[in-house]
């Protein structure tokens, strides 16, 4: 089975043994748009970071493989990883303010990426940058490129990060809660933009979020994570029509739907949380017995 991105049995834990990801399995084909859904602490960001090789140093990989275009990323040294990922994958981070260097002008930050990592010439990089800003519909690109991050609005900054991510035409993009910090109207524009760019460039997109509403707009398939374990993995249309796992159903019931006054906002009940927790933790004892 040689799909584009294949995560098999990935387990990650802290130094003290606390498990962050529990035998995660995921298959992505080229052009897929997959949502990674879960609450805070569920481990969804960690999957993206593991793929890109930017896991925090305190975490270690216990087992598993990440097959990217056939190569196991976990077996590569940092030089090989940079080559493999640098040109082929990119990240759209959550907080546009901290992701941009506050002391550098915007233009430099985009072109540097192209020149240093991919070896483009300065003039090629500059032309590409202008094209990108046009694509993400930033007015007055010259002024924007000469600005510092704090002089631009949050929505503008996020557009820049999207442009930057698509700059080298990567085959895979990981979007880590890219609209969480944005207003609802700006979020709509950004999500539409990401959708447009994805279909135009035919990029594979892994979209991390806790917002089920967002998932239903952008993704074709989704994986639900709880305590680092994938508890449901299905297409978006199936999920919202007939969610399978009780936890998924509870999540949907807890999501506000403004046009449905009759339904109460039901928090995920303690019983469901506890039973999923038990289910997940039971696997832990089997797992450590096997090792």
């Amino acid at each position: 089975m040689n799909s584009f991105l294949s995560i098999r049995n990935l387990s990650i834990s802290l130094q003290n043994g606390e498990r962050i990801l529990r035998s995660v399995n995921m298959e992505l084909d080229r052009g897929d748009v997959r949502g990674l859904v879960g609450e805070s602490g569920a481990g969804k960001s960690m999957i993206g970071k593991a793929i890109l090789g930017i896991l925090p140093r305190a975490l270690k990989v216990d087992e598993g493989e990440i097959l990217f275009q056939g190569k196991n990323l976990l077996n590569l040294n940092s030089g090989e990883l940079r080559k493999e990922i640098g040109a082929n994958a990119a990240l759209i981070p959550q907080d546009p303010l901290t992701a941009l260097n506050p002391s550098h002008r915007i233009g430099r930050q985009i072109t540097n990426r192209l020149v240093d990592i991919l070896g483009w010439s300065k003039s090629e990089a500059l032309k590409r940058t202008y094209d990108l800003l046009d694509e993400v519909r930033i007015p007055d690109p010259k002024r924007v490129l000469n600005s510092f991050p704090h002089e631009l609005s949050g929505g503008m900054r996020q557009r820049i990060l999207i442009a930057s991510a698509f700059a080298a035409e990567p085959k895979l993009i990981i979007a880590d809660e890219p609209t969480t910090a944005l207003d609802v109207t700006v979020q709509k524009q950004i999500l539409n933009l990401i959708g447009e760019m994805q279909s135009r460039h035919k990029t594979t997109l892994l979209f991390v979020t806790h917002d089920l509403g967002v998932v239903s707009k952008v993704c074709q398939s989704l994986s639900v994570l709880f305590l680092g374990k994938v508890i449901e993995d299905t297409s978006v249309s199936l999920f919202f029509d007939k969610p399978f796992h009780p936890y998924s159903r509870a999540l949907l019931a807890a999501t506000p739907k403004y046009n449905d006054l009759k339904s109460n906002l039901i928090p995920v009940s303690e019983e469901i949380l506890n039973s999923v927790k038990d289910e997940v933790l039971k696997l832990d004892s089997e797992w450590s017995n096997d090792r």
Partner: protein
Amino acid sequence: MTDNIFEIQNLCIDVFDMARKPLFGMTPKLQILKGITFNIQRRDVVGIVGGSGSGKSTLGRAMMRLIEPSAGKIAFEGKDITHLNDIELRSLRRRFQMIFQDPMSSLNPRHRVSAIIGGPLKLHGFERVDFLIEEALDHVGLPKSFKSRYPHELSGGQRQRVGIARAIALKPNFILADEIVSGLDVSSQAKILSLLQKLVLDLGLTLAFISHDLSVVRRLSNKIIVLKDGELIESAQTDALFEAPQNSYTKELLSAIPLPDPKQVWN
């Protein structure tokens, strides 16, 4: 005896625009709020909605008299509080309290929960402070043993509850909740909103709820006001606003909400 808990008339807040500060001479002023007028009646739950830069947080802080209005009038329970100083406001403050957005920065990291909730109680001369602290914790569903904990020993959701406990401990008539569920995930959000609903009923509170998320606001509020660029552009009963929004910006806000439904038309 007016039935209006809050009366806001033509409220204006100007600040110095530090981004355009010249080397010599006067710094120009930026108008954050441009003449807001509305009332909050007893037992109302008012949703104050707007995007970033709309001025909703500033409106909240002005109502709480954490900043002084540049023009206009604010009256609380019929009394003009627009230009009262801290000393004059102190005894009144017990009756209108606030819950903040970021539980990390709104709880003093060096105070235990008992000091966070008990401090204000002692300040206002309450007796049996210990009992009142436990009662407040009970109302928000936290165990009494949390009294001795520090904020960093609590989870985000628990900290938020401590913030709520602090606000209700003084037994106020009015509470302002400033984006209190904005950073939370779906499940925590639902819990906090249910809690707030319960408290409004049990304690007979009047509530103003600031949020950028209309769907969250709908559950709780009977009245909604929409802010844009420092102006109040629409004000209506909740059902009326959702069924027949008048202003184009309101319509834009409503249509921008991504419902958890793939069949929603969203372009």
